[in-house]
């Protein structure tokens, strides 16, 4: 089964600096593949190995996605080849732009199964996989915690509150995986040294014949204001504590 794993390039969260005005600065932030997309890559690698198929990777973004260290890092985790949909206008795409770009690239690359992480580790909208399935007109399942391939069918499990839902769908299909599905393996030195020899293909939106206009206008991104802790410790028996807590909340809301 030929698998295409989608990954987003995001900033390292701990390097993001929140300014006094609540604005975020990414100037000193390293970049990395989004955390949950590593689960998609790992699962793709497993499926490709188990079925004698291939795993390829695809991402959308501005020139960040062409960073050598990042590309080698992704390639060392299993994909035999990666594709970058790259344009200056794609620095901070909305979910529909990303899904549209991925759909066009996927058609060009070819696939039996597309895997996405359950959400990106920056905005975590959990939208791209669903929209990608819709645009491609394919079956799509999200929140999948186990995948079994049976011929050209997929048995996907979703862990619900108290039970497990088992779904069977034909391929081609799009599946979004949760972080429970696997533990991404640490690549070996051999994997890293091999990564530099794997091909990387860059597409512009023009190459794919799509126009990628944003559907969402982003007005501003602000970090939430940190609230000062009140440092009140309520003592007494349960009824008194509840009553006193209630009083404190009432005061706050005034």
């Amino acid at each position: 089964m030929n698998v295409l794993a989608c990954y987003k390039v995001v900033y390292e969260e701990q390097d993001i600096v929140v300014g006094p005005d609540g604005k975020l600065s990414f100037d000193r932030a390293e970049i990395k593949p989004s955390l949950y997309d590593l689960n998609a890559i790992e699962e793709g690698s497993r499926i490709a190995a188990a079925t004698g198929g291939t795993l390829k990777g695809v991402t959308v973004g501005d020139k960040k996605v062409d960073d050598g260290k990042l590309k080698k890092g992704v390639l060392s985790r299993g994909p035999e080849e990666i594709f970058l949909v790259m344009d200056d206008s794609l620095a901070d795409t909305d979910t529909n732009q990303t899904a549209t770009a991925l759909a066009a690239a996927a058609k060009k690359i070819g696939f039996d199964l597309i895997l996405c992480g359950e959400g990106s580790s920056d905005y975590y909208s959990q939208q791209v996989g669903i929209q990608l399935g819709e645009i491609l007109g394919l079956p799509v399942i999200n929140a999948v915690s186990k995948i079994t391939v049976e011929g050209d069918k997929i048995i996907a499990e979703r862990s619900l509150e108290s039970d497990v839902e088992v779904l069977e769908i034909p391929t081609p299909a799009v599946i979004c995986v949760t972080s429970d599905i696997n533990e991404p393996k640490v690549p070996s030195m051999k994997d890293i040294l091999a990564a530099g020899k794997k091909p990387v293909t860059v597409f512009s939106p023009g190459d794919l014949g799509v126009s990628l206009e944003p559907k969402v206008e982003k007005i501003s991104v602000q970090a939430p204001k940190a609230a000062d802790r009140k440092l009140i410790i309520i003592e007494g028996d349960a009824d008194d504590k509840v009553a006193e807590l209630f009083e404190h909340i009432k005061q706050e809301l005034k």
Partner: protein
Amino acid sequence: MKSYFLTEEHEVLKGMVKEFVQNEVVPVTKELDEKHEFPYELMKRCGELGFTGIPIPEKWGGAGSDAISMCIVIEEISKVNASLGLTLDAHTSLGCTPIAFAGTDAQKEKYLIDIASGKKIAAFGLTEPNAGSDAGGTQTTARLDGDHFVINGAKCWITNIGAADTYTITARTDPDSKGPKGISAIIVEKGTPGFTIGKPEKKMGFNSCMSGDLYFNECRVPKENLLGELHQGFKTFMVGLDEGRIAIGAIAVGMAQAALDLAAKYSKERVQFGKPISAFQGVSFKLAEMQAAIDYNRTYMYRVAKMRDSGMRYSTEAAILKFMSSEMALDVIDKSLQIQGGIGYHGDSEVSRMYRDAKLLTIGEGTSEICRVVVGNAVLAKY
């Protein structure tokens, strides 16, 4: 992030080692240290990841990479578990490298492939009760008897004892010789009759890295286990010791960096006189000195590694790195503990483990004094 010196592969490797260390080394480090246990599982994982023979050619079971990669791996691992860093150093530089350097194809086939790939663990035996800094004092003997060497004598402070399957040891093969001449390197397999492995020594630190005695009593090993030329063992083991000194540099830099990280974080959290102690120059100047010392040593470590990778002679530089970096680590760890005060002095603190561990660095694999002798001789040879 741009790098002035490391390649993209090195940067990816660094990220990968950090991931391995966080996921697999951190969770078991404290327990291994407290129980004085050899890290068998971690060494197996190191083999799978290619860390057990980084500079050894792929053909012989290694990763076919370079000494800079070895520095990166050992530094990152030693930040949290210096015992594992030292185990890897003793295995790779002392255990594998002499065989890669002086071994015949048959020896490499038989021993190197298994150890460089991590299937087996290697050790190197030079130190004796009366020989260490003075390798010429070697009293262990090996006499030729038909197709065999017959070895008699004892070794001490041999790292990786017990866990190792393959031991390269030094023995005097020319009974009429004095000093470093007339000594040979010979490979001895665990389980050879007449070869006894002692119990791990109780040490001040490096608890999950095992060191101890080896005993040879009429121990017969095949003649073809001679490593390198007869009576020329000194050359063979100096290759391992030189490379090992780079690895010790990486352990020292890693430990010092971790000690600085702990001190800097703590100094921003600990409030005294109404402000974090990092706001006092008595503390921030210490942090600055620690950072400066670490950066200098890390840069120099890369230089020596690059010299090795370029095929240059680097014995003098390796000796400089060894004593400078190990003494730096002691100083930085001491400052870190001072900044952390009572919390640092607690027996369970990470810095207290580092404090106990670090002292070995100025002693093992060439004491600070012997390294100064090497450098002093090199200086005087020029004038």
